[in-house]
């Protein structure tokens, strides 16, 4: 029984990272109306920046602040240069463009950093274990990850609900023609939302580094899982991404306990089931 509880906790940790990626994807899909295939590669870039920063300064803490900002800038630049021409075109073209971008990013990183992978040290401060009374102690760093993600999710929600900028973003997701008609400088908001989405992905990369190390292909598998989360939760749905992300993280974790062979396939079966019986996703709008 306490094995199961441990697995639940671990599932929430891996789910938390999925939530971050899925939220970014959803924001981008909601306002800019395309699926950002480069999301995984940008997550990887964030992780690499963390690894270099940690090697230079000896600590990961700085990266938690600096990397998301750097990624936001990168996102803004990308949006203004290569993504902008895609608006008004087929939804598919942006998808294809970001797919091509993935190749460029991965190979670019490989060229600079090599294929071998790099270490990211976990913060010394958190190198202890916490006994939550769940039978087995949990490394403090993993709990920190959950807390950090919760803060980001909360912050994003507050931003969207309580600020004027957030209000416009939400309205833009609803109906961007109308928003434009009301005189809003829509392209600025697009850049902002894309930058936020990429910053959040970069933040996820920062958090992941100490758990798995960094390597060029790290964005690929998690991106596909993030797609599943987005679809299962409901495309464009904020809480859908949160719920589905945690759900899938836990599902994979628990399946690993009982039938580890099938753990990889569970998210896709879930996706197919959801698409068949509830196409709008768990919390998606019709």
């Amino acid at each position: 029984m306490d094995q199961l509880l441990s697995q639940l906790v671990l599932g929430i940790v891996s789910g938390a990272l999925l939530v971050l990626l899925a939220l970014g994807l959803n924001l981008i899909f909601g306002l800019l109306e395309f699926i950002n295939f480069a999301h995984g590669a940008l997550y990887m870039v964030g992780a690499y920046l963390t690894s270099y920063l940690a090697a230079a300064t000896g600590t990961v803490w700085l990266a938690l602040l600096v990397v998301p900002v750097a990624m936001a800038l990168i996102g803004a630049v990308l949006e203004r240069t290569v993504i902008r021409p895609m608006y008004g075109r087929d939804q598919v073209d942006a998808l294809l463009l970001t797919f091509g971008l993935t190749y460029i990013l991965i190979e670019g990183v490989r060229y600079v950093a090599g294929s071998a992978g790099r270490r990211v040290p976990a913060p010394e401060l958190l190198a202890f274990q916490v006994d939550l009374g769940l039978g087995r102690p949990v490394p403090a760093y993993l709990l920190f990850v959950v807390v950090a993600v919760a803060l980001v999710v909360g912050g994003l929600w507050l931003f969207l609900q309580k600020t004027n900028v957030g209000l416009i973003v939400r309205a833009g997701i609803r109906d961007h023609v109308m928003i434009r008609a009301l005189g809003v400088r829509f392209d600025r908001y697009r850049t902002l939302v894309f930058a936020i989405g990429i910053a959040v992905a970069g933040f996820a990369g920062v958090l992941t580094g100490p758990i798995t190390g960094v390597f060029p292909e790290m964005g690929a598998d998690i991106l596909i899982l993030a797609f599943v989360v987005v679809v299962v939760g409901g495309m464009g749905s904020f809480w859908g991404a949160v719920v589905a992300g945690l759900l899938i993280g836990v599902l994979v974790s628990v399946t690993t306990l009982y039938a580890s062979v099938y753990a990889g396939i569970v998210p896709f079966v879930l996706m197919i089931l959801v698409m068949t019986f509830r196409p709008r996703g768990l919390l998606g709008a019709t």
Partner: protein
Amino acid sequence: MTDLSGTEAKDAPVAAAASAVTLARATGSAPARWTWGQLGLLVVLAAFVLFTVPNPSLAIGMLIFGLWAAGLNLLVGYGGLVSFGHYLPFAWGGYAAGLVLKHVTTSAWVALFVATVSMAVLSALIGAICLRRTEVYFSMLTLAFAQLGFFIALQWNSVTGGDDGLAGVPVSTLELGFTTLELNGLRDPLTFFIVTAVIVLLTFTALILFTESPMGRVLQAIRESEERARGCGYNTRLVQLVTFVIAGAVAGLAGGLFAMLNNFVGLQPYWLLSGVVLIMVILGGRSSLFGPFLGAVLYLLLESTLSRYTDSWQFFVGAIFVVCVLLFPQGLWGLLTTTLPRLLRRTRRAR
């Protein structure tokens, strides 16, 4: 709105489809120029490849991948449905053919028949689920099925060889009425190439017939506006499903040929290879059936030559692809048939 009673009912669908196609021509995503001329172009391309590509297996591979990509373009270019899982029927078609050759018979007819038909059936089942949604959702679903297929191929070790791949596929024989040909890609590549070329040309002809047929035209009308097509009384889902099945069957055929060429079926990430065939389609040009062949040749040339000079060849492929999507969305074919003639016309007019 149109009165769908009496004699008008017979004309209305055809007229609607024709008008939709006309509209498509006007907006620039036209069906190909020189529809039947493409067949001639394909013959020329095959000859070109035959005589210039030094690696015979690569040359044959270009034809096979071109066919695979052309089948995908039925979905992408003509149907407006972007599948991210088109490696699945290719890979499994390969397994089907390989397993038939290993355990049942070395007849190439049987192996290819099984590969094609089994993938047609599989595509029907998968398409029935994936086509319930459109656009991005459809793409995501095809991706999910590709991952599912990868997982099964990986796990079903006893049948597929799992990660190590299906090895020891025997050389197949092709029985024609007057003679029997042994299809050994390594020892007699010329025979293999010619047989492949014939199969590819015949299949290509069938694909052209489909796109020019009433159903093919309705498919393109659906791409322009599904609602309008449905409003005209067409069973849009059925048309899309038939297209999905044809694309899958063609992929299965291509995969079977590939298995016979290599006597081996390897395991690769399905989503990655699905992306590669999509790149071939986009690079080559999605507005025609010949375009994907150009894309396949181009991609494989880039892969084989660039990789000799730099380890980062995928960077350049990615960059070329991005430039293509940004500036030449109609691909190489569009560049050759639309952009360049327009430029030439402009310079001629300027004089």
